[in-house]
């Protein structure tokens, strides 16, 4: 069987191979096009864009739009650039990702290895939270944040994203731990390890792939969130909202080159996370299905 398939693969030569690679090349160029436009235009002076061709390479190469976007551009009423908002996003994303991942791991651990009466219902409700649209919770969430005194603050945004993230992170960890042999937990119990000791010494060391999946998922979602940031950010708005304020400003000349640079800056962290941890992402998603 295998040898037959191999033969077919070998015989797929010449013309069809050129055809396949040709198509792939076209698709690659198509998908790379926006990135090329953004990078190229962020590196030229404004008059080259307004007076010329969007697709052309810069005639004069300059980093000025990047400097502008980062530290000088007008965001709303302040000429601060995106820098403070970038930091806002970092201060929001990092704790939110860490906390929701830890809680998800603990939930998954309890739901699979310390099952109790009604655990299925609780898991079902947690899953349900994955499907609630953001808009529905805006007003109740605003009330809660107000009562907690967290309205318009970064800790408030962290809380919102943690609450929203628990559903997904629990789902990931529960499914991962469901295939983790319960006998190991029992052996550790007999060996005298308690609840947290088993979690820390037995479960977590083998949870690498699913941690990566959860972190990537949470990081991308929280970093890219606009609605909660715009609604509850107050003066501490995240990067996405600031980028909108930069691009949508209604006064003055539209500085497209600065806008392009700002957009790349806003997309950069998620891009880096994917490039660094992407291969673990695929491995983690496969971990439950094919067990080696």
């Amino acid at each position: 069987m295998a040898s037959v398939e191999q033969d077919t693969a070998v015989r797929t030569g010449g013309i069809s191979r050129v055809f396949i690679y040709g198509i792939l090349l076209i698709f690659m160029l198509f998908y790379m096009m926006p990135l090329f436009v953004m990078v190229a235009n962020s590196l030229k002076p404004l008059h080259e864009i307004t007076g010329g061709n969007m697709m052309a390479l810069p005639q004069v190469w300059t980093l000025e739009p990047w400097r502008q976007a980062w530290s000088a551009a007008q965001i709303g009423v302040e000429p601060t650039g995106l820098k403070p908002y970038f930091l806002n996003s970092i201060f929001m994303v990092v704790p939110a990702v860490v906390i929701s991942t830890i809680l998800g791991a603990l939930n998954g651990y309890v739901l699979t290895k310390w099952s109790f009466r009604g655990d299925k219902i609780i898991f079902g409700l947690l899953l349900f939270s994955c499907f609630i649209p953001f808009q529905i919770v805006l007003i109740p969430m605003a009330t809660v944040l107000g009562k907690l005194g967290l309205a318009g603050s970064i800790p408030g945004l962290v809380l919102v994203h943690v609450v929203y993230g628990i559903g997904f992170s629990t789902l990931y960890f529960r499914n991962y731990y469901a295939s983790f042999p319960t006998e190991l937990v029992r052996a550790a119990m007999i060996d005298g390890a308690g609840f947290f000791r088993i979690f820390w010494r037995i479960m977590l060391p083998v949870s690498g792939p699913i941690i990566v999946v959860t972190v990537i998922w949470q990081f991308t979602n929280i970093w890219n969130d606009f609605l909660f940031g715009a609604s509850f950010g107050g003066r501490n708005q995240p990067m996405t909202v600031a980028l909108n304020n930069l691009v949508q400003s209604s006064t003055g000349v539209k500085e497209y080159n600065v806008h392009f640079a700002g957009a790349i800056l806003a997309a950069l962290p998620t891009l880096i996370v994917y490039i660094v941890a992407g291969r673990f992402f695929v491995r983690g998603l496969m971990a439950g299905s094919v067990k080696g």
Partner: protein
Amino acid sequence: MGFLEIRNATKSYGNVKVLHQVDISVEEGEFLVLVGPSGCGKSTLLNMIAGLEGISSGEIAIKGRVMNGVHPSKRNIAMVFQSYALYPNMTVGQNMTFGLEMHGVPKAERDKALRDVGKLLQIENLLDRKPGQLSGGQRQRVAMGRALVRNPDVFLFDEPLSNLDAKLRVDMRTEIKKLHEKLKTTIVYVTHDQIEAMTLSTRIAVMYQGYVQQLGTPKEIYDTPANVYVATFMGSPAMNVLPSRVVVKDGLPHAQITDAKGAEQLLKFSQPNLSDWDGRDILLGIRPESITDPDGADRNSRNIVPLRNLVGITEPAGADTFVAMSLGGKDIIARMRADANVVSGQDFDFAINMEKAVAFDPKTEERIKP
């Protein structure tokens, strides 16, 4: 008062009772095997001893201390699991000393215990490896080592050999037996393999449908099974159980059975009290090795009965030749010497060792005691 006492222990999940009134008393140094088909409650009972499952009613006591509600780690037991349950992220050495570490044993003592057990099980050269780098047999040793390091009161084994291939299983079985004879530890061992049960145990509890069917030494279980279930479960090939009728002739009870050609034959019993059953139906139990060729019959038996019957098929198995034939309307198996001259489709003179035959009440399926 035994070392490990199980008194009236039951287990139910909701309305489903999976274990009924189990009473077993294990002496120090005993090797008790719980054997039975899957779903008979043997693993549940083991988990109850370990404390991994609660006890619905009754008591379990180790060294006179009642263990109901006591956490598994506080019972001073160690368990070897079917999947070995080695922690994949730790080395063999860390695996084995994890329990000691959790109990706050100082590093120097842990290392000494590890060295001693490593030497005993000949796994000293594996201590720095991860479980994933070991073969099945090595993992099995490490799992036993992890239990031994703790020096527990009772060892619990949950089908420890069922993941090994056939040859390794036999080797490890011998090793476990040697280890037990050397260390004289108290062991409770769960298996579904009746040969493991026979070879390893000092006593066997045969379990079926949540009841202990019989508790006794391997010889008692084999020679005097309490009921038809135990008789057919223990032994390979299984005991032949065939319908028969008691006929008293010359003042002695005989089993009247129908041979392959439909003729009635009489086999004299060695059990005089069966005269009380004169004229009534019974189930006659004869092990395959009790039906032989005349030369292969047990010389020490005082009751060898001849039986001429049509040979069905023969199955040479190297050491023995198995003969299938019809008797009492059932297909039965006889075990001959390898070179016995039996030919299928012909009549042959068999010799039946009736001293070893057992009779069962056909209604209750209990053995009729002498």
